[in-house]
Structure formats: structure tokens, C-alpha cells
């Protein structure tokens, strides 16, 4: 299901969380990057039909999310993993998935159980299917979260920072799993972790302060730092201009990588930027400090 958003606004009291968002999301896996408070969660909650917009238009698969009927139509084909999803501690994994499956309208008992079994295998929780959710680790909870999102074979999957707080291996497993399911659906992934987007998405958007400041192929983000990424080796203080992205201490001096539109130091040499450096360059343009 493709998503078409235009002029989307959402206000909470005096805070304007979304200030006119325009975005088109085609099928496949799509990354949503942005600073804390940029409005990613607000946008995703609107897409999930949890929040109503204050203004603007959102069409998902042709359904208008500002109407009740449109929201219901989208929700029937939606998988949503909210940021900070809480699970009922006194249910087992199996029971929790069964509950959510029923609420999604999977009324056929046999089909629902089979699907739950398949998903438990897929996320590697089959062994603990009968255990109460109470004692689950962060990674296990996130896997239950993605399993519930995939119940009912949704056409649109919205996942809000699913990899935050996971150890590197778990994070890689998780994002690979997400990429694996994106073949025949739209998966919208929000994250702070640029690397997750680099490894899994062809297309991405970047949000800052309630607006979309970039949308396009992920390589387009890298291009923003083209000709503006430098390496400086010095034994003195770090370069005063630009944003230091990395600093590695070595015997001959500290190697700094700096994003700066101008040469930050006479000794600086231009280097090929990474996605993270592209992101930093983009953020400097979007929200000048």
C-alpha cells in the first residue's frame, strides 16, 4: 500500500509536532530518520489511525485517514509496532499473539494458530511461546512486538524505532528480518540509527522539527556531504569549524572526520562521505545551530 501525505499538520496544545509534511512512500522498505522530537512518532500514529491530523491529507492505499471509514479500512491491513510498546505481563507469548490476532479479525482458529506458530518460528520465540511475558528481555519483547505486527499478513507495516536499545547482533537480526518481509509490502521504519537505514532501505525520508527535509534514495543523503567531508590528522585540538563526526586516536595523532562546507583546516583532505556524514550535513542545513 502506498502512502501519499500532503500538508499534514498536527498540534498538541501549543506544540506543533507536524508543520506541513509532504511525503510519498512507495512499496518496499522505507526509512524515516530524524532527531528527537522531529515528529516521526506523531506521523506514524496518524498512519496507524491512532491520532487524527489537525490538517492536511493522508491517503493510504487510496483510503483517506481523516475519515473513520478510511481509518478502519487501513487498520484492517496494518501492522503497527509502536515506540515503547508494552505487553500484558500476565499473558504468555502465545496468548498475547492470539489476543491481538482475534482483535485483528483473524476469526478462523486453525488459521490463526498456524500463523502464530509460523511467526513464532520466524522471530525465534517458539521455545518460549508458553512463558509469561513478565520476565522477557528488551530484545524478546521487540520480537513479540514485530510478531504481533505481522499477524494477518498486513500490506502496510509501520515500525517505530524497533531497534533502539538492542545489542548489535540482535539489532542486525531484527533489521534483516524487517527487510525480509518488505518484499511484497510497504514497511515504514523509523529510527535514529542511520546504519539501520543504510543496510535495509533504498528510499528514505529525513524529518526535522515537524517537516520532511529530505526524501529520495538513501544515496541522496550521502550526496549532501559530497565535497564537504574531510579528514584531519593533528596532535593539537580538534578543528574549530564544522561538525566532528569521528575521532580516532592513533600514534601519529588523532584522525578526525569533519563535515564542513569549507575546508576546516589547511591540512584537511577531502574524503568519500558515509551515510552518517550525509545525515549530519543534511541536519546542518535543515536546522542551523
Amino acid at each position: 500500500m502506498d502512502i501519499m501525505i500532503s500538508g499534514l499538520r498536527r498540534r498538541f496544545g501549543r506544540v506543533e509536532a507536524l508543520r506541513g509534511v509532504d511525503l510519498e512512500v512507495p512499496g518496499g522498505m522505507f526509512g524515516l530518520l530524524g532527531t528527537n522530537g522531529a515528529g516521526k512518532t506523531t506521523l506514524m500514529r496518524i498512519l496507524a489511525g491512532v491520532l487524527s491530523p489537525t490538517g492536511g491529507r493522508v491517503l493510504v492505499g487510496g483510503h483517506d485517514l481523516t475519515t473513520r471509514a478510511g481509518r478502519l479500512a487501513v487498520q484492517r491491513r496494518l501492522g503497527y509496532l509502536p515506540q515503547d510498546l508494552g505487553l500484558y505481563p500476565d499473558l504468555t507469548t502465545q496468548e498475547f499473539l492470539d489476543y491481538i490476532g482475534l482483535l485483528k479479525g483473524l476469526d478462523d482458529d486453525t488459521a490463526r494458530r498456524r500463523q502464530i506458530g509460523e511467526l513464532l518460528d520466524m522471530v525465534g520465540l517458539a521455545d518460549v511461546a508458553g512463558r509469561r511475558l513478565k520476565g522477557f528481555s528488551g530484545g524478546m519483547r521487540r520480537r513479540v512486538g514485530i510478531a504481533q505486527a505481522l499477524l494477518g499478513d498486513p500490506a502496510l507495516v509501520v515500525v517505530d524505532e524497533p531497534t533502539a536499545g538492542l545489542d548489535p547482533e540482535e539489532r542486525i537480526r531484527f533489521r534483516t528480518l524487517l527487510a525480509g518481509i518488505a518484499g511484497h509490502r510497504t514497511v515504514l521504519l523509523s529510527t535514529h540509527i542511520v546504519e539501520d537505514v543504510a543496510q535495509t532501505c533504498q528510499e528514505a525520508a529525513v524529518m526535522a522539527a515537524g517537516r520532511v527535509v529530505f526524501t529520495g534514495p538513501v544515496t541522496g543523503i550521502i550526496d549532501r556531504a559530497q565535497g564537504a567531508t574531510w579528514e584531519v590528522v593533528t596532535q593539537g585540538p580538534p578543528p574549530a569549524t564544522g561538525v566532528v563526526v569521528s575521532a580516532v586516536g592513533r600514534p601519529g595523532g588523532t584522525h578526525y572526520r569533519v563535515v564542513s562546507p569549507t575546508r576546516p583546516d589547511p591540512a584537511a583532505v577531502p574524503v568519500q562521505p558515509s551515510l552518517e556524514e550525509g545525515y549530519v550535513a543534511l541536519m546542518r542545513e535543515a536546522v542551523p545551530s
Partner: protein
Amino acid sequence: MRSRFAAVCRYEFRMQVRKRSLWVSTVGLAVLIAVAQGDRGPRHLPAGTSAAEVMGSWALLFSMLLPIGFGMVLADRLVRDHRIGAASLLASLPTRPGALVAGKYAGSVAATAVPGLLVLLVTAAGEFAHRGDLTLFGWAVAAFAVVLLPGLAFVAAFALVCPLVVSAPLFRVLFAGYWFWGNMLGPAYLPSLTGTLLTPIGDYPASWLMGEKALYAGDSGWLSFLRPEPGGGAALLSVVLLAVLASLPLAFAGPLIARRTSS
């Protein structure tokens, strides 16, 4: 739609019935009542007393205190979705808020009823040991259904919904205060709902079972039109009125939850 309601009901039942505080508070209060009652309590009813009166008296006695525990353990059932962090997920599912609220209400009331009913059945077994009357068990179920259950259903509606407006701890304090004022404070001392048809303690139904005034049912006082002579009709009217009153907060629950989720 019906199957969604049934699903919510089933799982809310499981979660509530697994809650240890439900069992601890119900059994604890029941044991306290059974042991600490004075010599006018049902334990001391003379031999030959009808089974209906014996179980009606027990039910009324339990009904004085058990619902306080019920109110306390039900107070988190709706608000906890927000506290736990499940509210956004629930709101994103193609299930109407009405089905969620109704299912949560029915499931948690049914689960809370389980220890209440067991307490009465165990009591019936105790009475059976020296009265030898098998109908005690039937009357235990009947007394549960007309004395304890309507009060539980009434208390549950407010316990689920009020914490959406005030905090759950504040609700618990207000609720305990209300319980003594509205059920046990004699109408002769201060204007109160005690002894009216709106008393969830089951005064009227218990009076009907016992064949005499159980507590304050029908005593003269404030709002005299709500204080008819006790009897079968008055007992039925009391149960119906409590059910109507219970539906009021429930009607507001859906919008209150939606407002919370979307702000």
C-alpha cells in the same frame, strides 16, 4: 463484532483471574468476616433456620466488605493500557472502542466473581457440615447472584471508568469513603444512600432472601421515594436500578479512552 467482544472478554478474564491481589484480598476479607463476626452473625443462626436465610445472611455479610476489595483490584483495568504502553496498539487495531470496553468490563467482572462465588460455596460447605441440607449450595449460588453480583457489577463500572478521570489511588480512597457512607452509615445519623434501592451492598435482595429486613432496607431517611418496603419486587427493582446506574460510566469510557490516547 461479537467475536471481538468475546475475545476481549476471554483475555481480560484470564488476566484478572491470574491477579494475585484479587485472591489475596477476597480470601483475606472473607476469612476476617467469617472469624470476626459478632454473635448476631450468620454463624450463630439457630438450627432449623431456612437455607435461604442462612446463605442470604452470609452473602450480605460478605457483601459489606468484599466489594471494597473488588473495587481496588478493578481500578487499574482500563487505565493500565496507558500505563503499560498497550493503548496505542489497541487503538490501531480494527476493533471498535465499544467492543473493547464492553469486553474488558464483562471479562474482569466475571473473573472477579470467581473468588466471590467460591467463598460462598465454601461457606455453604461449612454450613452443610452441621445443617446437612443440600439446598444450601443452591441458595449459595442464588444469594451470590442476587446479593453480591449486582453490587460487583455496579462497583466494577465505576472502578474501571473513574480512574480515567481521577488517579487510581485517589479513586480508591474516595471509593472506600463512599462505600461506608452509602452502604453502612445508618440513615438516622446523616443523610446517606444506606437503605435505599441504590445500595450496592444488596440490602434489598438479602432482605428478600431472609424474609425480614436485612440491614437498613426501607428505613426512613433521605430520599424516601427510594426506600420502599423490602420484598421480591423491591429486590428486583434494586438490581435493575444498579444495572442502569452501572451502564452510565461505561457509556463514557470509550470517548474518555479515545481522548487519552489521542492527546
